[in-house]
């Protein structure tokens, strides 16, 4: 039992961070039909902004995280939208997908070139205290990661459903033409979506880097997991991405413990195949019809 509690807590903590990245994925898709294959690198990069703040500028951790957030909003939010998405989107989804793949490679190689190829230690946001729950050692770090991720996603849901700006963002995502007729500044709403994605990526980066260590290649795993989580949960639903992220975190850990450590990385992919075959819209997604 203790074993199961331990693995569930670890799985949920990791899964909640995957969910942050997956939610960003779905937001961008809904707002601008952008499938961002650089999402993993978006999560990798803010950790290096923070490290630059701490090691180069000599800032304490929290101001460095603040700096990381600002730089992420500017680079991964504003610059990404203005320099890549806006020029590429009129040419269709596929060129944009290829552009984001190229962007991911550029970010990865740039970090390797400018900061180094080796992993870097990253300071933990939460204390390393461990306490006992029914025989399982539960760390403040795991609980903290879970709580912060849930608060971020819960806050986002509230913002989208309960505020005027949030509803305008939803209207812009669902039908931009009608939203514009109704007086919504669609371009601004789409920009908000990109900024929210950058903020979520920063939170995910700060939470996961103490565990993964900050490394230029971290985005490879994170991007794939976030993409699978978004598909499994439902590409057009935030709560779907949340469920997908948590599910993958737990399944990954359970399969490593009870099935086979060698095939653990295959389990999310098997889940993905099963979902596509049995419920193509994802666990919580809604079917979208298209005519030709």
């Amino acid at each position, binding site marked *: 039992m203790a074993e199961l509690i*331990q693995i569930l807590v670890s*799985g949920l903590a990791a899964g909640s961070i995957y969910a942050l990245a997956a939610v960003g994925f779905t937001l961008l898709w809904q707002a601008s039909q952008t499938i961002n294959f650089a999402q993993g690198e978006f999560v990798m990069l803010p950790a290096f902004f923070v490290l630059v703040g701490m090691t180069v500028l000599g800032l304490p951790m929290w101001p460095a995280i603040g700096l990381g957030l600002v730089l992420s909003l500017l680079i991964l939010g504003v610059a990404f939208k203005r320099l890549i998405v806006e020029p590429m989107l009129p040419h269709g989804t596929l060129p944009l997908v290829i552009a984001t793949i190229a962007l991911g490679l550029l970010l990865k190689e740039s970090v390797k070139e400018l900061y*180094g190829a080796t992993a870097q230690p990253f300071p933990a946001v939460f204390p390393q205290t461990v306490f006992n729950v029914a025989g399982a050692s539960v760390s403040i770090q795991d609980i903290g990661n879970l709580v912060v991720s849930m608060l971020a996603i819960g806050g986002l849901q509230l913002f989208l459903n309960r505020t005027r700006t949030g509803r305008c963002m939803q209207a812009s995502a669902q039908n931009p033409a009608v939203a514009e007729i109704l007086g919504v500044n669609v371009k601004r709403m789409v920009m908000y979506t990109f900024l929210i994605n950058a903020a979520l990526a920063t939170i995910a980066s700060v939470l996961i880097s103490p565990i993964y260590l900050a490394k230029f290649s971290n985005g490879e795993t994170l991007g794939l997991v976030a993409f699978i989580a978004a598909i499994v949960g439902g590409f057009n639903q935030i709560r779907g991405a949340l469920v997908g992220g948590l599910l993958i975190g737990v399944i990954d850990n359970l399969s490593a413990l009870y099935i086979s*450590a060698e095939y653990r990385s295959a389990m999310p992919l098997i889940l993905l195949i099963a979902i596509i075959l049995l419920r193509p819209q994802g666990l919580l997604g809604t079917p979208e019809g298209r005519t030709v």
Partner: protein
Amino acid sequence: MIKKLLCTAAMTMVLGMTPALADLKIGSIVELSGPGAAAGTNFRDGVKMGFEEINADGGVLKEKIELLEYDTQTDPQVSRALVQKAIDDGVYAITGTVFSSSTVVNMLVAKQAGIPQFTGSEAPSITSMSNPYIFRTAFGSQKGVPKMTRYMIETMGVKKAAVVWANTEFGKGGHTAFVDAMKEAGIEIVTDIPTEQAQTDFSADIVKLKSSDADAAFIYVTEEESARFLREAAKQGLKIPLVGETTLIGHKVIELAGEAANGAMGHVGLTPDANIPAVTEMVERFKAKYNYTPDHNAIKGYTAAWAIKYVTEMVGSPDSQAIAEKLHGLTLNAAEHPGVLMDVSWDETGEMSRESFFVEVQDGKQVVKAILPPN
């Protein structure tokens, strides 16, 4: 006029016939990116510092060494292509690679071309393939691990053991050496956990270890994975002693794992914290030059550079085949060859022998608990 023309022509011919004073070329082929970057960068920096000192000291056979650097990206196929490229570029010896999965692939190219290769890899298979051109810069795990298991059994009193290992060529070598040594000593392996290269999440592995009744666990994964493993072990409050090789208690691991590295133990062939003046001085020069503390891989690279110089000068020319022949059965003692830092020998397979250390990480530093004799 004719005299002048003849004179000029004669001089041109003489100059044309004079051999150019070309530098001697060595290939440094290591993992500068990918999962092996921590180990490879240390190894490369050690080699580089070694050859810079050698050049400042007059070079090899009074010629400067030109070090050609190549990044394998920790990809065996890339490493194979780069060994071929280095040979095409005219190197007479190669240093690297560090990751065994790469070395087992690329050493065949060096063997075919008859170029001696000084590897930082530790998989047993590397020196068991009848390759007369491969030479270690640290023990293979089949030599290092039995020294460590003896210490675990005799000094730590381990009766039941667990093993966590990377499912790669490197990891399989250490795993086999550990399991064989323990079985021979009648020690039961109660938990056996393979992990993947570049694995990031070790929660399930630590849970398995916690539920085993092992007295100690042998951890044999690469540096970055070791750091993540130690962090997760500390997070879950794992109590049993964690014992490993250089990859568990190296300086990069200590830097990455922070306080979580304290208490980890292991056997190291080379350690910057060994109380040996030559090693201490080399470490200080390295720190001043690169602004970080070298690990065993840097010392491997440094000693490889000096070994190449000494053997080349013993042979009297950069003759790759003669150098390889000379190295088999050779002992370089540190008194006469200070660049190798400690007495070292190579046998007929390219395997090496040297004293080594059992260390424990205390307050972020390796503390030598015992000096283990050569085997």
